[in-house]
């Protein structure tokens, strides 16, 4: 089967190339991808460029609340730390939490959606009512409640965001599962003797995968925003630097009333740009992969 395996790989490369060719047509998607690549490079190289010392309060290089200068392009915070360094260092937490929480939420949503679409009956009714309940609950309130009762750590934040934003994914995946399940090849698989697991894993999952991928990219920006919100409300992990946490510190230090814009604006813009970049990418991926949006495969 060596030649067959090689051919399979060739096919995969071809379909990846086809995907890229179609993706390239979306200018907004390319812009989002470029912004994203920039942020990822900054986050990955942060240990080399700024290092973890940047968050140290005791060895702060400058005086508190310095305005932007040649030495500190974005000024300093209330402890005299370099804000540009903090911004770069904070991107790591924001991206990591956003990614993990999105993956968690899509895992839950995908599982719930596929099983609810496949089994129907009382199981689906119960599961979908639970989903509805999560859908109408104010996400932020639920996340705050979760983050409050559990210990303060990054894992808690990931969990709190992940378990609150999955219902939209579950609904989408269930709808797509129902559409796939009505196709004749599902009946053929049943007549061949395929059980529930076979149908869900071999037929439904590959067909809802594009939707799940697009949904993941879109969910990352939601997660990043949620993480920033939780951190701003003081529910984040106080030992790590994140953009939301920087905003919260700025507020506590009175940056709003004293007009220290360099303390507030950069993290805010960074959050907005990353969320926007992921949304642009997600929309482009969605329109390439989802034929229902009018872009054929």
């Amino acid at each position: 089967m060596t030649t067959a395996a090689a051919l399979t790989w060739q096919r995969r490369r071809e379909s990846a190339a086809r995907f890229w060719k179609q993706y390239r047509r979306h200018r907004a998607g390319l812009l989002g991808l470029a912004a994203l690549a920039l942020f990822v490079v900054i986050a990955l190289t942060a240990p080399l460029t700024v290092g973890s010392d940047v968050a140290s309060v005791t060895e702060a290089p400058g005086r508190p609340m310095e305005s932007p200068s040649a030495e500190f392009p974005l000024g300093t915070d209330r402890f005299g730390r370099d804000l540009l360094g903090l911004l770069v260092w904070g991107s790591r937490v924001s991206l990591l939490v956003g990614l993990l929480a999105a993956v968690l939420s899509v895992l839950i949503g995908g599982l719930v959606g596929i099983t609810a679409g496949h089994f129907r009956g009382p199981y689906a009714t119960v599961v979908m009512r639970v989903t509805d309940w999560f859908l109408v609950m104010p996400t932020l309130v639920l996340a705050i409640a979760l983050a409050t009762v559990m210990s303060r750590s990054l894992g808690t934040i990931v969990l709190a965001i992940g378990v609150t934003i999955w219902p939209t994914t579950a609904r989408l995946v269930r709808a797509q599962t129902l559409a796939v399940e009505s196709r004749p090849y599902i009946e053929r698989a049943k007549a061949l003797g395929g059980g529930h697991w076979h149908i869900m894993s071999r037929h439904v999952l590959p067909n809802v995968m594009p939707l799940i991928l697009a949904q993941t990219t879109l969910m990352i920006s939601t997660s990043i925003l949620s993480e920033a919100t939780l951190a701003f409300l003081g529910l984040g992990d106080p030992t790590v630097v994140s953009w939301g946490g920087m905003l919260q510190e700025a507020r506590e230090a009175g940056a709003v009333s004293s007009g220290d814009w360099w303390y507030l604006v950069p993290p805010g813009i960074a959050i907005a740009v990353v969320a926007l970049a992921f949304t642009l990418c997600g929309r482009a991926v969605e329109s390439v992969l989802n034929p229902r949006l009018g872009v054929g495969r």
Partner: protein
Amino acid sequence: MTASTVTPLLSAQGLHVTFPGRPGAAPARAVDGVDLGIRAGEIVALVGESGCGKTTLARALLGLVTPTAGRVDFAGKPLSYTSRDLKSYRRRVQLVLQDPSGSLNPRHTVYDAVAEGLRIHGYDGDERKAVTQALSQAGLRPPERFFLRYPHELSGGQRQRVVIAGALVLNPELIIADEPVASLDASVRGEILALLLRLRDELGLAALVVTHDLGLAWNIADRVAVMYLGRIVETGAVEDVLTAPRHPYTQALLSVVPEAPGTPVILTGEPPDPARIPSGCRFHARCQILASGEAERTGVADACRTRDLEVLGGGGGAQVACHWARPGVGA
């Protein structure tokens, strides 16, 4: 057709399938009492108009819908509906669906589609060899060239062959084909039919072919069963039923075949509704014999309107469910 005493491979006895109607409406009796037997190596055609319950009967025979009443016997034993028994049953009986484009997963290669059955049943032999053999039996040669194709790269006929190969790969004893060639053009249709006949001769495969096409039934079937509104109204050897039809419904069906002699009989009355099956003979509201007064003359008109007909036996002999066509009455 001397083997009518032999136990059929697959048989239905008094099979009823009822679908619940909307709240307040009567339930639809899609299959309303059917006896049908298929012996090993025999091709039976099930013909009838759209909505007469052919597909539901086929699905019930496969265990894809649970009958409301009656039972399905396979190899002399009643079909059990536990998931393990159904799985082993579905190794021996295979389904070929009408729409070859829809019955293949667009994300699976031909190889995966054919090997699917083997993988489900945990085949421990050489999977590649089995797939190769099934593809070449289905007429896709050389098989290796098709392994990594996707369904959208194949023609309709090739797709249907892949579906048939996927059914053959498990060496089934019986294939249930629901409109196997309805969506194919005439040249491909001929190839697929020749394929079915060859498989019957080479492998002793039995088949139930569900179709609305009498020409198809004539070409491949040994025996034909005509279905009307959930029940079989006429059955017998294909030559008898299609050359000398006795049931007025079969006569009407045959008279509208393009090359049929005589004037076509256009059935009047509303199309049948399985939720409102008329009393008496279920065909009487549209029967041209009754409408022309022919039944009146032979004195069976009252029976047509009021007396229910019994379910025809599933065996091989020629039978008809019609008061007028009974021996000793009328023509």
